[in-house]
């Protein structure tokens, strides 16, 4: 199931700015996401990290600057085709409540003309990968636990074997135990598939768990782009230090 080199996809933001009303969500930022790498976008809410994903998917277009996919500028004409090469997973899953799990998974494959047997096989394959019980397939999202919903959302993103995965706070709504478990599984899956992965989170520990490369954003600009050690040892400005130190640790055990 591992993606071959040719199937990977690289993204570039080139001096991109995006304004929503009075809010400047992205302020002239340039970022490269090389094919086959895993990157974590971190920052407080409103820092612009989700906007990066929206621009890469063509859900929005930058006011100035451009988005390049494998070196080619993203335009309206190719946006649908591009999106089908990307799996997109959001907080709480964004599952369609009127469709069963299988119905959610089948939505894109059916449009692509897959026959039912192929859809079922692929769904079962992914259920194994994500440790989802097979009997859940015929249930509706309302009948699933939070963790199951997130697994299904990931499966839905992976159904058509995309070249990249974009995840926006995929574990944000889960309780700590399930979250911990899914962090393990996601990391395993990322490594197993070898796709280009961009994951958005506000949790530094989670970001560092998934990715070597961390991109810390604030008010629409990149504050620092580097490894966890870079952020800790060589902070680009005082905000980085504050962000790093804002992560809670368990108190030491007292003797």
């Amino acid at each position: 199931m591992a993606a071959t080199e040719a199937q990977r996809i690289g993204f570039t933001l080139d001096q991109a700015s995006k304004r929503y009303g009075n809010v400047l969500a992205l302020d002239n930022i340039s970022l490269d996401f090389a094919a086959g790498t895993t990157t974590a976008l971190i920052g407080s809410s409103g820092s612009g990290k989700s906007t990066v994903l929206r621009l890469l998917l063509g859900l929005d277009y930058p006011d100035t600057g451009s988005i390049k996919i494998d070196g080619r500028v993203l335009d309206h004409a190719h946006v649908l085709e591009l999106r089908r090469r990307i799996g997109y997973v959001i907080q709480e899953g964004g599952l369609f409540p009127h469709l069963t799990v299988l119905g959610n998974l089948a939505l894109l494959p059916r449009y692509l003309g897959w026959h039912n047997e192929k859809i079922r096989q692929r769904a079962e394959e992914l259920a194994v990968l994500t440790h989802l019980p097979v009997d859940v397939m015929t249930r509706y999202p309302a009948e699933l636990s939070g963790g199951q919903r997130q697994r299904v959302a990931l499966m839905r993103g992976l159904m058509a074997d995309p070249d990249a995965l974009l995840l926006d706070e995929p574990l944000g709504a889960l309780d700590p135990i399930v979250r911990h478990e899914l962090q393990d599984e996601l990391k395993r899956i990322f490594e197993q598939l070898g796709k280009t992965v961009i994951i958005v989170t506000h949790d530094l520990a989670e970001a560092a768990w998934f990715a070597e490369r961390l991109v810390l954003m604030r008010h629409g600009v990149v504050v620092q782009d580097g490894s966890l050690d870079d952020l800790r040892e060589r902070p680009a400005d005082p905000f980085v230090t504050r962000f790093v130190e804002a992560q809670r640790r368990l108190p030491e055990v007292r003797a």
Partner: protein
Amino acid sequence: MSRPMRWIIALSALLALSAFAQATPVRIGSKVFTESVILGELARATAQQAGVDAVHQRELGGTSILWKALQQGDIDVYSEYTGTITHELLKNVAPDADIPTLRERLKPLGIGITDSLGFNNTYAVGMLESKAAQLHISKLSDLTAHPELRFGFSNEFIDRADGWPGIRQRYGLPQTQVRGLDHALSYRAVASNAVDAIDLYSTDAEIPYYHLRTLDDDRHYFPRYEAVYLYRLALVQSAPAFVTALQKLAGRIDENAMRQMNARVKLQGMKEDVVVAAFLGIRADTSADKGLWSRLLQTSIEHIKLVILSLGLAVLLAIPLGILAARLRRLGQLVIGLTGILQTVPSLAMFVFMIPIFGIGTWPAIAALFLYSLLPIVRNTHAGLVGIAPELRESAAAMGLPRSVRLRRVELPLATRSILAGIKTAAVINVGTATLAALIGAGGYGQPILTGIRLDNISLILEGAIPAAILALLAQGLFEGIERWLTPRGLRLEARQ
């Protein structure tokens, strides 16, 4: 079964229910008052005697509706009065023009006129005998001394040039309390002292019954209202025997005979066809005389047909309009605004507006009901689509599905409940509003209500009102069932949480 399939089945089943053929025999119309209905029935019986197939479309409305219908060929014959023809229907004609003159003037319009049937049913103003005696009022000019008197006039009389505006000017009447009333109800109003004077037709059976004094038209304002039939000249070719028979009715009904026939229908509760048969000395055609259940069946079919056709057409247009409105914000506001304006048109006016376009009968009624059904469906389709959670809309978009697929597979199913609620609202409103369709000849439950008001017959009114209420409840229940059937199971589960 796939969900689009279910929609198609539900829609086409509703539309198929309403395919009824219509024959085209000679069509006779009548206005919404007893004498006109009797004369319409007389024309029908006469046609039958002459071996011509004829139908009587009863109680189509007021003068303007019948006159338009005759000119447009929606009906072939109706009874009219010479005074109305000179004052209302023709322009630039002397108020006292005789029938041969009218015949010349009507000919270019393709319309023929019989000679007088033999009676003059002029307008008059009447008061309770007791009250008139007490105030010493015996003629119209006596009214000038009593500005405090309250008048209750039929709506037509208030507006017509030869009605209230004319006598007020001629007699210099000072009264300011003038209310519009249905003619059939005005007798009750004057008898119960709710008003002091009302307009009358001089052949009305109620004049002696309610002990009314007819005030003398001492300045000779009201013209003669000789009863005649107006017919389309095309009938001379298509049904010559009928035209000949119709002309032979001239001079056969005097004022007394007409008042007697009116009394039998209005006061003794006899049916118009029985009264007419007695007058003609023939046996009433009892084959057309239906029992309660077959009458109910007919009005139900007519009513349901109106509702289903108008609703079906509205669904076909309103859902796409709602989708468009949700897509394009500017256009959406315009569409919702326009359908909202349609909703504010008074329903009776809406029915009448449709007549110049569609004539009389079923189609203008369907058109009016159709226009009324648009708003709830457009608004709910729009609201249902706009109300979809943004993350769901984006999840579908981010998959790389084209808009049409997103609409069909995600957005419309998520909006199902809202859309169906809109259709349900439209259906229930429609069932009630369709009772007005009888006023323009479309039948339905409004027919017995209309006749019941005219004859002051409560049980006849209930014969229309009760089934209409039951049908509204059934429509509600039916659409709740359809909603359960069409709403995706996952949405019901979600709503329960």
